[in-house]
């Protein structure tokens, strides 16, 4: 048996048990012995790896942002505000029955439609714009809308976790991270506001998409920092 045959045997039959001829060759061939030893150690190392590795949240967030930016996926425009999630969850848990749930959804849709019609009549567009402009950045980021709604929501959910992890730190790095998060949030709010007024503005959309990606990376950096200092 030659070295090439050993490779073939390994490919077809695996590492063990090796055939008599193969063992005889190994006894004489140092290269093949080393080759087998390398393979064995690789297999051992692979066995020690966890069966599933969960990627960090930022991977999903960045992926979602990218897919939304490219128009491959779209999230519903009407998102439930973050602060309403808890009462919404409790209601949905309460109405387990499908019939009741369907009726409930129908009522909610009807109520939302009536509310929308009324608010359109009462509030002129310019007043609505003024109220949006006057609102502070943190309020705007809590009520995301439009095609980036899903990304915005996911990031806003992550934000308190990330900032909380470096909250007590007074190091210049953490101060810088907090300062830059504020800058990104303000920029996002500005772009969201502008895009609401001019939904066809592609340049603003590009900037908004990039800003969301930067925010995702920044939150991830804050979480990593927080883990290292706590």
């Amino acid at each position, binding site marked *: 048996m030659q070295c090439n045959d050993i490779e073939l045997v390994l490919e077809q039959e695996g590492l063990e048990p090796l055939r008599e001829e193969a063992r005889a060759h190994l006894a004489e061939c140092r290269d093949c012995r080393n080759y087998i030893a390398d393979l064995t150690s690789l297999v051992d190392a692979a066995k020690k790896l966890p069966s599933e590795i969960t990627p960090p949240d930022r991977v999903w967030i960045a992926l979602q942002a990218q897919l939304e930016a490219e128009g491959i996926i779209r999230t519903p425009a009407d998102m439930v505000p973050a602060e309403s999630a808890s009462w919404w969850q409790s209601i949905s848990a309460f109405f387990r029955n499908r019939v009741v749930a369907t009726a409930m959804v129908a009522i909610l849709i009807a109520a939302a439609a009536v509310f929308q019609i009324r608010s359109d009549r009462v509030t002129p567009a310019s007043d609505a714009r003024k109220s949006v402009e006057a609102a502070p950045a943190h309020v705007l980021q809590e009520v995301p809308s439009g095609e980036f709604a899903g990304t915005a929501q996911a990031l806003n959910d992550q934000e308190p976790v990330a900032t909380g992890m470096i909250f007590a730190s007074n*190091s*210049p*790095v953490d101060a*810088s*991270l907090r*300062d*830059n998060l504020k*800058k*990104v949030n303000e*920029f996002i709010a*500005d*772009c969201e506001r*502008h895009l609401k007024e*001019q939904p*066809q*503005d*592609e*340049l*603003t959309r590009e*900037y908004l998409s*990039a*800003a969301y990606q*930067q925010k995702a990376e*920044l939150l991830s*950096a804050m979480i990593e*920092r927080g883990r*290292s*200092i706590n």
Partner: protein
Amino acid sequence: MCLRMMEMTPARPGTWTKRNILPVLGAGLFLWSAAPARGAGTGQNVEKQFKITGRPVVVIHNVANGRIEVKSWKNSEVDVVGTQSSNKVGFDIEQVGDRIDVTATILDPSAQPLELEADLQLTVPEETELQLKTETGLIYVEQVMGDMKLESYAGDVHLKEVSGYIIVKTTGGSLVCTQCAGKLDFSSIGGNAQILQPQLNNVNLMTTTGNILFDGDFVRTGLYSMKSGKGLVEVRFSSTDSFDLKAQTATGTVDNQASAFLKPDSHGVKHMASKFTHGLFGTVGMGLAKVELSSYSGTIRIMKRD
């Protein structure tokens, strides 16, 4: 005073002994108690040299506060000098083939920021690949040829006479790139980018709130993209340059101070700015390079160098 003391004859030997020994003991005690603090505050150096057979890859991860400086020499060796402000920071340095890994780690998480300073000074062969990551403190690289990825949260990055595919990523740190060649990617949230006297043929600069300055020649057939969300994007070109220019802003302004040199597009393509943006299109020379400038709400300034 000492002589006078020596001349004095003590009334009682015991008193004399006490008087003279006590200050000595006191001083000794003071020095002994101060010794650990002094050790923690004094710089300690670590120096190692590594022989290299090919083109080395140097990977540095500095989680402490400090400066990373990389310069080159003709030797086939990598020299690493680490300086730490206290024993609460440690260096792990190892060589695996032609890869050198340097990690500055925090040994005592309760240490104060001043105790967590660790500077690294490297001398590498001219052709070296770099991957440097730091949190705060300057990254300085001079006269190194090779691909490099430089990441920092709050620290600035200064590059001088480097070439290759250069990736710089910061959160708040700024980039100053002087006489750089090759391809450059820069992204930051609050950092500025200054590109001076470049020989770069592919440039991608993106900052959310920082400013961008490009002062130098556009290489023929080069591609240049410079974007700032809220900051100023300023380009200074020379009359011998040859490029097509596209400048766009959503809510900002385009300040064209070189209108005499910008002609309408000479390639027969009629550009139209989107109705939602303010745009400027033009050609300098034959329009061989492609330059795209944009800002969401900042100013785009186009100037010709004297």
